[in-house]
């Protein structure tokens, strides 16, 4: 005998479900659950802004308070997506301004955000609290001024690694004198100097400030007054961390740091001068996250600092740390979960530092909790990769960039197939993988066979034939995002696995061998995909059908071909899709 709870009870229960997956599951149970759930969903995540339209979202979820939207494909970070490609947020803001007056939170990633959009946000949502712009572009400091001036309840303003046209630092002064709600400010990506007195006054009048990440233009001698004004800071990012060493500045800094008893995360450190690093020693024992990726200090100074951080969970650092420094890391920082080592000289022909595969092997051995790795280096071996895999079966993210494309195992000159094969075989929970070095189709066979939890795979200069791509598409059950550059993958694997593409968020292929004809065919077979050809040589019709396209971006969507394409992007079979919908 069927009975049901009153709506209010179900709504109350659903409120405990925060994960999208759970909410989606709940809405599939029956029609009434679908209706109740959709009316009480407060947070939505849109992984691809073109997979759905604002209108569809708003129609289904009328009571949203927080949105997170992602735009351009990941390879846009490396300049592979031409300017003008798309991912404009304005249509979303404009639609939400009409339908979500109580919206509190907007988080955007890789989207084009104009000053107009920022102004609209600042004026449309009376209770607006959180704005996070991660790797966005298209706005100026004028847009920030609107946010500062109009968002009376703003708690968080995080500009991430966005590209902001920095007209002046004056925007900060637009926060009204009675504005006190700021909890988090990240302006580290900005170039120009803000008025320091305005900044200081802002910090002093916001008692709940927990995160403050300054930009490079704030000099080290100004830091003490800010730290003293915000003793409850949990996360702090310095500006340029250099000056001629002066004892009073140094001692002020030490005193100011020591007043911050809750400080856990540090970043900034542009142009860091070793002499000023010891000023932080008093907080090191509590530090869980350290971003030194802008600091060009040498290994001994890095070692000195790191050896005082036993609770370190996350370290981002330049390859100046060298193998020796990583050895120290592995012996002092047993709680380490995430390591990112960036190249100090990515374009140099010769190595400038002594950082090899050994450093990573040592850390994999010494840090039992290590789960997330991003590592740039210049040599690798299968033996090292196998050792790493055996040491750390708990790896979740493994992104290895051997700087020289197609570099083989430097000891045996073999491809690195078996090494990466060991990674996917041992690390059963692996969700993200980036490959590099000399790789044949064999590595993809291993990946297809073992990487069952893999969600995102990045490939460059790898493989021999379509078989490689076929292994991945047919074997990786959890695959959501696949991005490929400069691989000899063509039509066959793509067409044979067309249905797979509908189970994924997106596929990016650039400088591969997929022909125009195959793109058209794929679009015909799969009307729920947008098959977008990006080609700056002009319309593909001007070239033979067998001619490979420059770039290809395929994604599933419920809202058909997009209408904001620039003149170097074409949606395959657009007319047919429009006729069908």
């Amino acid at each position, binding site marked *: 005998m069927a009975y049901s709870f009153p709506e209010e009870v179900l709504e109350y229960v659903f409120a405990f479900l925060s994960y999208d997956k759970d909410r989606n599951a709940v809405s599939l149970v029956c029609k009434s659950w679908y209706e109740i759930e959709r009316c009480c969903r407060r947070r939505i995540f849109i992984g691809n802004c073109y997979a759905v339209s604002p209108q569809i979202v708003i129609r289904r979820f009328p009571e949203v308070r927080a949105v997170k939207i992602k735009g351009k494909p990941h390879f846009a970070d490396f300049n592979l997506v031409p300017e003008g490609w798309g991912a404009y947020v304005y249509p979303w803001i404009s639609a939400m301004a009409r339908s979500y007056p109580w919206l509190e939170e907007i988080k955007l990633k890789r989207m084009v955000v104009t000053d107009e959009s920022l102004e609209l946000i600042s004026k449309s949502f009376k209770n607006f609290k959180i704005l996070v712009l991660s790797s966005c572009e298209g706005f100026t400091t004028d847009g920030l001024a609107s946010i500062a001036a109009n968002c009376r309840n703003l708690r968080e303003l995080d500009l991430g690694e966005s590209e902001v046209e920095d007209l002046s630092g004056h925007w900060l002064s637009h926060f009204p004198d009675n504005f006190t709600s700021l909890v988090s400010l990240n302006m580290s990506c900005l170039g120009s100097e803000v008025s320091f007195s305005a900044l200081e006054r802002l910090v002093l009048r916001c008692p709940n400030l927990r995160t403050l990440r300054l930009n490079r233009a704030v000099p080290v001698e100004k830091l003490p007054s800010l730290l003293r004004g915000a003793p409850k800071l949990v996360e702090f990012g310095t500006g340029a961390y250099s000056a001629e060493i002066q004892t009073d500045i140094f001692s002020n800094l030490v005193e100011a740091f020591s007043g911050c008893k809750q400080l856990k995360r540090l970043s900034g450190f542009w142009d860091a001068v070793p002499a000023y690093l010891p000023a932080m020693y008093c907080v090191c024992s509590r530090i869980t996250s350290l971003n030194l990726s802008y600091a060009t200090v040498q290994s001994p100074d890095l070692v000195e600092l790191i050896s005082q951080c036993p609770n370190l969970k996350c370290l981002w650092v330049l390859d100046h740390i060298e193998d020796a420094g990583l050895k120290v890391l592995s012996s002092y920082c047993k709680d380490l979960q995430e390591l990112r080592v960036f190249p*100090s000289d990515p374009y140099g022909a010769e190595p400038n530092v002594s950082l090899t595969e050994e450093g990573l092997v040592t850390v994999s051995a010494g840090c039992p909790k290590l789960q997330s790795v991003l590592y740039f280096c210049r040599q690798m071996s299968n033996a090292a990769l196998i050792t790493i895999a055996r040491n750390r079966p708990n790896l979740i993210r493994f992104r290895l960039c051997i700087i020289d494309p197609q570099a083989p195992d430097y000891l045996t000159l073999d491809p690195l197939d078996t090494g990466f094969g060991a990674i996917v075989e041992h690390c059963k929970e692996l969700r993200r993988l980036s490959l590099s070095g000399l790789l044949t189709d064999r590595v993809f066979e291993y990946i297809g066979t073992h990487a069952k939890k893999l969600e995102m795979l990045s490939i460059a200069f790898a493989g021999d034939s379509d078989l490689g791509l076929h292994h991945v598409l047919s074997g990786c059950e959890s695959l959501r995002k696949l991005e490929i550059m400069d691989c000899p993958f063509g039509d*066959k694997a793509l067409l044979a696995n067309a249905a797979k593409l509908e189970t994924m968020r997106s596929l990016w292929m650039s400088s591969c061998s997929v022909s125009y004809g195959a793109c058209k065919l794929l679009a015909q077979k799969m009307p729920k995909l947008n098959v977008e050809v990006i080609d700056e040589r002009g319309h593909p019709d001007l070239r033979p059908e067998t001619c490979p396209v420059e770039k290809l971006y395929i994604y599933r969507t419920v809202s058909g071909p997009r209408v904001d394409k620039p003149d170097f992007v074409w949606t395959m079979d657009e007319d047919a899709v429009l006729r069908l919908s």
Partner: protein
Amino acid sequence: MTMISEEHKKEKLGFEETELRLGLPGGGGIINGDLVKNTNANGKRGYTQTVDLKLNLALKETEKGENLQKEKNLISCSNDSVKPSPKAQVVGWPPVRSFRKNIVAVQKSSSEEGGGGATTFVKVSMDGAPYLRKVDLNMYKSYQDLYGALGKMFSSFTMGKCDSQGVMDFMNESKLMDLLNGSDFVPTYEDKDGDWMLVGDVPWEMFVGSCKRLRIMKGTEAIGLAPRAMEKCKNRS
């Protein structure tokens, strides 16, 4: 290398079921060979270092033992004789974000001449165009190169003939006019000091080092810039 089992697998996958039967890409038609320098016939951008090509060929052979010595020799020869081309030739590799590229570059630029090779992406806007583009100045060796690329990028937008005689004369003198012949658009740039200058003023390397962004202006607006550029020219000669 088990070639045999790979063939066997290909059969099992039933590739013959795929509807489309296409020839190898590039067999049919070749795109403008000179246009995008990174693209070749089979869609692969030739990472055209001799070292890599030789290495790949060698490794495809079944008996790696025999070849180990040969390969080692190849590598040592190649390192000596072939100076590796700047890595920046390949867009997107290595996968380093722009704001991370210049950390050490600042320190190096004074000491090294041609070895750096970092990318220098600048925005290019054109008056009247609906969106702007980005170019990597390090991809080009001369103003002519750059103009060619800009011309192709913005070719859909150029229109009309130049009627500003003063500007035309100046430009013709430098012979940098593929894009601008027959149009009234003038390339300008913003330099490190924030000043807007006519492109072509200074030696190419100096331009690459000081250019922050490009703007292709309507000729009428650029007239104000011409005198300054002319002055600089006169001062130099």
